[in-house]
């Protein structure tokens, strides 16, 4: 594990999950917040969806993109919803 890096579990839904090919993965990241984490995952997986269209949830609750991430937390990127 890189100095300063932490492990986070990332959940993918809908078109993001299709793009990654899996519903969840555990990643090591030096990112301090969800903004940095999404940027690195977008580069790795080639997500076409810009961050501005997503919401982010940490440990099952909606969060701010600039909230600090903690080691072992669970991050979910929420594409625009279409229930109902």
């Amino acid at each position, binding site marked *: 594990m890189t100095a300063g890096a932490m492990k986070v579990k990332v959940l993918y839904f*809908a078109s993001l999950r299709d793009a990654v090919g899996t519903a969840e993965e555990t990643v090591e990241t030096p990112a301090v917040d969800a903004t940095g984490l999404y940027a690195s995952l977008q580069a790795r997986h080639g997500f076409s*969806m810009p961050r501005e269209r997503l919401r982010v949830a940490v440990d*099952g609750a909606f969060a701010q993109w600039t909230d600090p991430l903690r080691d072992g937390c669970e991050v979910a990127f929420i*594409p*625009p*919803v*279409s*229930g*109902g």
Partner: protein
Amino acid sequence: MPRFALSPTPFDTATLRAGLLDARVGAYASFEGWVRDHNDGRSVHGLRYEAYELLALREGEAILAETMARFDILDAACVHRTGDLAIGELAVWVGVTAAHREPAFAACRHIIDEVKSRVPIWKHERYVEGDAGWLHPD
């Protein structure tokens, strides 16, 4: 008792409605979303709803609690299907009871609007032409 639920199987609205009624109720407003054979001009064969279950249940409960606090109503509930649905299947149900019709209608409308805009549920449509796709409205 939770007011918001996800159901992986078809569910019975008559039972849900009965659970909301009591002697104080003068007005019951309900809304149901059904799987149509068309959407945005395309022929739909069927669809699938996927939810981020933990967050969907929390967000759904939050919407129902906000609605109970904001409107002069007696009770409210919402159930949303998940999984594969065919044309003509029920996708979502909202029921609201109140003494009077004005807040019953307003609260029912508020709940479905908020559920559609906030609850992490996604619709995957399969078209008659064979292709399919996730709906991520702007």
